[in-house]
C-alpha cells in the first residue's frame, strides 16, 4: 500500500501570535515553527498502518511550504516515514487559499499515486479545515473527516473509521482510496527518536516546484481573499462583585449582566 501523509509547518502552539503592522499576516520574528499537531496524528497513523502491513507498504510525506519546512519534513522522516515530497516555489509564498493549496497538493499526490491519504483535521494556524475536502473532490475519492479510530479491512479495499460525536462514536466505512483527516485521540504520536533523526538525513526528500508538477503558474485562482488581519479587541476589565451576603452579590451580578453588559 502507498500511504500519503500531509503536513504543514505552523507556529508552535505555545507561540504568542502577533499580527504585523500592515495587517497582512503574523509577525514571524522569534516564533518557533512545528509540524501541525493534527498532522502528527496523520503521520503516526500512517506509520502504525505500515507496521501492521509490513513489507510493501510505504509512508510518503507530502508538504507544501517554504524552504524552512524541511525541518518539519525531516521530523516526520525521523518519526519513521520512508520518503518525502516538498513542494516549494516562490510563487506559493504566502500559501494561497485552501483551494490553491489543495490544487497543488492534488498535483503532487496524483504524481505519487496513493491508496490512502492521512492528514490533520485542520492546521492550527488558520484553522480553515478545508484542504482535505477540496482535495477529496479534486482527486475524486471519498473523505472521512475528524477520525478518532481507523481500521483497515483485511482485503485492504475499505476501512472502518470512528468519528467522535456528541455522546458517542459514529462508525463510517469507506472504500479506498480515500482521504482521512485525523483528530486528537486517534493515536499517541511517537517522538522522533535519535536513531530516527540520524536515519532521516539519508532518506529521500524530493523538492518540487510548480513547473515540476506541470503547472504554468499558480494553479488556479484563489477563491477567497484575506483582506486584513485584525488583532482581537482588548478584553474588558474584570470586575469583582462583592457583598456581605451571597444572595445580594448574585442579585447585583444579575443586574449588571442585564443592565450593563446586556448579556441576559
Amino acid at each position, binding site marked *: 500500500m502507498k500511504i500519503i501523509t500531509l503536513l504543514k509547518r505552523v507556529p508552535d502552539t505555545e507561540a504568542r501570535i502577533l499580527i504585523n503592522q500592515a495587517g497582512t499576516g503574523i509577525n514571524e520574528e522569534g516564533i518557533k515553527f512545528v509540524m501541525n499537531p493534527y498532522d502528527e496524528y496523520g503521520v503516526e497513523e500512517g506509520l502504525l498502518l505500515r507496521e501492521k502491513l509490513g513489507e510493501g507498504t510505504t509512508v510518503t510525506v507530502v508538504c507544501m511550504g517554504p524552504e524552512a519546512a*524541511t*525541518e518539519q519534513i*525531516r*521530523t516526520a522522516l*525521523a518519526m519513521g516515514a520512508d520518503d518525502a515530497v516538498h513542494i516549494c516555489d516562490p510563487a506559493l509564498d504566502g500559501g494561497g487559499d485552501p483551494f490553491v493549496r489543495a490544487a497543488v497538493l492534488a498535483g503532487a499526490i496524483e504524481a505519487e499515486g496513493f491508496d490512502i491519504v492521512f492528514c490533520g483535521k485542520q492546521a492550527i494556524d488558520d484553522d480553515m479545515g478545508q484542504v482535505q475536502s477540496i482535495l477529496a473532490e479534486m482527486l475524486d475519492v471519498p473523505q472521512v473527516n475528524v477520525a478518532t479510530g481507523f481500521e483497515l479491512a483485511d482485503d485492504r479495499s475499505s476501512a472502518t473509521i470512528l468519528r467522535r460525536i456528541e455522546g458517542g462514536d459514529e462508525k463510517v466505512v469507506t472504500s479506498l482510496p480515500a482521504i482521512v483527516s485525523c483528530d486528537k485521540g486517534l493515536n499517541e504520536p511517537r*517522538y*522522533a*527518536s*535519535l*536513531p*530516527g*533523526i*540520524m536515519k*532521516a*538525513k539519508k532518506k529521500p526528500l524530493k523538492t518540487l516546484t510548480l513547473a515540476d508538477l506541470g503547472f504554468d503558474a499558480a494553479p488556479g485562482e484563489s477563491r477567497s481573499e484575506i483582506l486584513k488581519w485584525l488583532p482581537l479587541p482588548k478584553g474588558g476589565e474584570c470586575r469583582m462583585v462583592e457583598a456581605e451576603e451571597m444572595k445580594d452579590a448574585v442579585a447585583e451580578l444579575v443586574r449588571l449582566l442585564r443592565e450593563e453588559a446586556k448579556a441576559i
Partner: protein
Amino acid sequence: MDFRLTEEERMVQSTAREFARKDLAPVAAEANEEGVFPDAIYAQLGELGFLGMTLPEEYGGVGFGNVSLVLVLEEISRVCASTAVTLSVHNSLTNAAILKWGSEELKRTFLPRLAAGEILGAYALTEPSAGSDVSAVRTSAEKRGDEFILNGTKLFISTGDKAGAIVVFARTDPNDRTRGMTAFIVEPSFEGFSVGKKEDKLGLRASTTVELVFEDCRVPASHVLGETGEGMQIALALLDGGRIGIAAQSLGIAQAALDEAVLFARGREQFGKRIVDFQGTRWKIADMATGLDAARLLVYRAASMRDAGEPVVREASMAKLFASTVANRIAYDALQMHGGVGYTKEYLVERLFRDARVLEIYEGTSEIQRLVISRNVLDEYDRLYPAE
C-alpha cells in the same frame, strides 16, 4: 563563526525537550521528593537513543557528537537534574571509557547493552581519602593469573547500585603515583563486589549515590581498560567530557530557575504592582539571563571543540566552573525573588536551589577547576615567553 544549531541539532533538542516535558516532568517531582530512582524513565531513554547517543552505530549507538549531548543534558536537567547526572555519567564517562579504551571484546559485550538501556553505567574514582587528590587512590588491584583481585572502598558513586558496568580505578603499583593506577570494568555480579552505604543527599534525590565495597573482588584481566598502569591518564582524559556534561546539567538547572523566577515575578504583586515591574527585579533578571547565555556559549564551545578533536582541558574546566557558579547564583536569586514561598517545597525553585549546590563540587570542585585553568594559562605563557 556560526552560533546557530544545525537542523539536526534542533531536532535532537526538540525530542529531548518534548520527552522531558511529557514523560519526565510527571514523574520527576515525586521521584525527587521521595528519593526514588525512576527506573522506567531509563528504559524510555534507551528506546529513544539517549543512552548511546555518542556511540557509533556498530555498537548500537547513534553517532551524535558532544554538542548534541549537551543539548540533551540541558533539556533533561531543566526538568530533572537527577536524571541528567545519571545520563551524563552513563554517556560521558562509562560509554566514552569503553569506546576509547575497551578491547573489541569489551566493546561488543557492553556497548550495545549500555546503548539500549539494558544496563546503566557508573564511574568509580573517588575514595574516602582520594577526593580532589586523585593520585591518592588506595583501592588495590593485584594480578593473580588471569584475574585481578580488587580490595578497597569507593565513595559517592553515582548510579553505583543500579549500574551493570562500572569503570573502577585501582592501584596496580602502590609506589608509582602516576603510572600505578589501572582502569577496570566491574560487573555487579563479580564475586567480592558489594554496594555499601547509600547517601542521603541535599539534592539530586532522584539519582542514587552509593559506596562500593571490593573485598577480594575478582575481575578478569580481559576487563582492563587500556593498558595496565594507564588508569590515571584515562581518568583525567574522561574528566574533560564529564565536566562538559556537568556544565550542561548546570545550564538546565539555571534555565529552569530563570523560568520559575520570571513566571513567578510576573504573577506576584506587592505594593500594588507586579514585582517584575520593580527595577530591582529587572536587574536581577538581566543578570541571570546574561550569565546563563555566557555559560551556554562556553559549554557549546567546549563541546564543539571536543567534536573537532581538539584538546579541551582548559575549555571544559572554564565551562564547568562558570556554568556551575552561574547556576548557583541564578538558583539563589530565583529563590530570593520568590520570597518566603521559595523556601517551601510547594515551589520548584526550592529543589533547583538544592540541586544546584553539588554542581560546584562534583566532577572537580570549582577550586580544582581554577587550578586546572590557571595551570593551563601559565603553561601557555611559559611557552610564549620562556623564562630566562
